[in-house]
């Protein structure tokens, strides 16, 4: 049974340009799927449609057999609780400590008052430390986030997504602002989310090589349309050219 079904999804921000056109794909539970494509292909928009950070113009998305586009306020919060998100610019609150930022992932389970007062139970705090330990940044737990390096901040971002107990983690270009070394650490951690915790991962990527190496499946997006969808070994140079519309060897691929 597919965890996520995207059916004829279309999105337009204004009347002239359609960012996404008739996008169809399924994601099964426990899959690691990469979405690749040139800048402006609609990768970020696609990801944000799934947890309704942007509204859906046409078509439908089924997550866990729920119609995403019709969810009302409370159910939408519930949906977002089930979907973790990791961002290119980490999007942490820079003046708060690492542990506080990780616990922000629990707000979906809290009432207004509990959240405002910052009431977290011991289990949640212990789990936050466990995740930080797994990600190898336990010793920075009480540091302010603006003191950490990019790679460390991204790991805090991952911890924040994982403490939600999500069924799906969306990653919007998680390694686009990182050096190759930190990129590898982050990708390894994301891979282990799927392999160890069984959480499905949907990752936007710029680097074809990285997608090739880590994914179970790759979806190629060009100008809002799916032009490739298949296991990573089927992604030949010819197909890459179709996704990017150029000779990839001319591109710098690190």
């Amino acid at each position: 049974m597919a965890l996520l079904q995207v059916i004829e999804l279309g999105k337009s921000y204004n009347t002239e340009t359609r960012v996404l056109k008739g996008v169809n794909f399924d994601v099964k539970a426990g899959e690691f799927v990469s979405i690749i494509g040139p800048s402006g292909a609609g990768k970020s928009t696609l990801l944000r449609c799934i947890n309704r950070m942007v509204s859906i113009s046409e078509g439908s998305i089924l997550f866990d057999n729920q119609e995403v586009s019709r969810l009302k306020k409370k159910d939408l919060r519930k949906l977002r609780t089930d979907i973790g998100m990791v961002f290119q610019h980490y999007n942490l609150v820079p003046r708060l400590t690492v542990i506080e930022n990780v616990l922000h992932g629990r707000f979906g389970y809290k009432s207004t008052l509990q959240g405002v007062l910052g009431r977290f139970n011991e289990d949640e705090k212990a789990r936050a430390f466990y995740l930080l330990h797994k990600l190898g940044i336990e010793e920075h737990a009480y540091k302010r986030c603006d003191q950490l390096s990019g790679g460390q901040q991204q790991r805090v971002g991952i911890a924040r997504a994982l403490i939600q107990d999500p069924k799906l983690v969306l990653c919007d270009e998680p390694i686009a602002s990182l050096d190759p070394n930190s990129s590898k650490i982050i990708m390894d951690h994301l891979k282990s989310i799927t392999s160890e915790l069984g959480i499905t991962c949907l990752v936007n990527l710029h680097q074809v090589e990285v997608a090739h190496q880590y994914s179970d499946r790759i979806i190629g997006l060009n100008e809002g349309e799916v032009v490739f969808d298949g296991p990573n070994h089927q992604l030949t140079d010819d197909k890459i050219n179709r996704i990017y519309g150029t000779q990839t060897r001319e591109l710098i691929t690190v």
Partner: protein
Amino acid sequence: METLSKPTYMKRNRDGSILIKARSKQQLVMRATIGSLIILSLIGFLLFDYTGLDLASAITETAYNLKVMFVEPALNHFSLGEAFYQVGITLGLAVLSTVIGAVIALFLSLMAATNLSNAWVSKTVRIVVAFIRAVPTVLWVLIFAIAAGLGSEAAVLGMLFHSIAYLVKAFSEAFEEIDKGIIEALQSTGSNWWHIVTHGVLPSTFTYLLSWTFLRFEINFSVAVAMGAAAGAGGIGFELFMASGFYFDLSEVGFITYAILLIAIILEVLSTQLKNRYFPASVRSES
């Protein structure tokens, strides 16, 4: 030869030197405005009524008055203890209007910030607040004096009103400066609006809110001095008004001025100290 065939983007002044500023309409209007203001001021000076003005004695007498004020400050009509008490009243007026104003402004500014509120609410709050700000504080005090009578109540109400309007603008702009990724990230975890405000927006903007509040406190202190005289709110302002307008006691005016100056300096030092010590903008890194 190649250089000749290329189109030239370089502009030159009339004397042949290379121009580095784009001559825009805006610049022209600015120059015309400043030029005409200078000419009008010069004409104004020529048209003044100078009869009865003896420049030499005017300057020496002013200098004498200033000397009495600032070199021989003294208290003649009330004691030092009473002076401190009066300064305390003025400070009290400023504290009351700033603290209450900041609390109310905090909630209103959340409604006024475009990234935290819907367009309709934020526009309404902004327009109301702009209207309140456009009317000077003294006028608000006098308007409230109709209901509350001249005195400290009207002064605090009027100052409060203007403080709220000022702080709502400052606070909401601070909120709008916040990285929208922070809000997005919290939204994506399933946080509701109150969670985002208390754990994302406020921690990121707290130092700005604090420094704006302190700035407003300093403004309110000087306004409270003026209100003491203008609205009979009491405090050191009223004594200043009495000393200058009724007793013509220049040394007392001098003393009071020094007292106000001292308080202003203390407030300034206190606010910077407080901000640097407890709410640093960024932690000094080890490297």
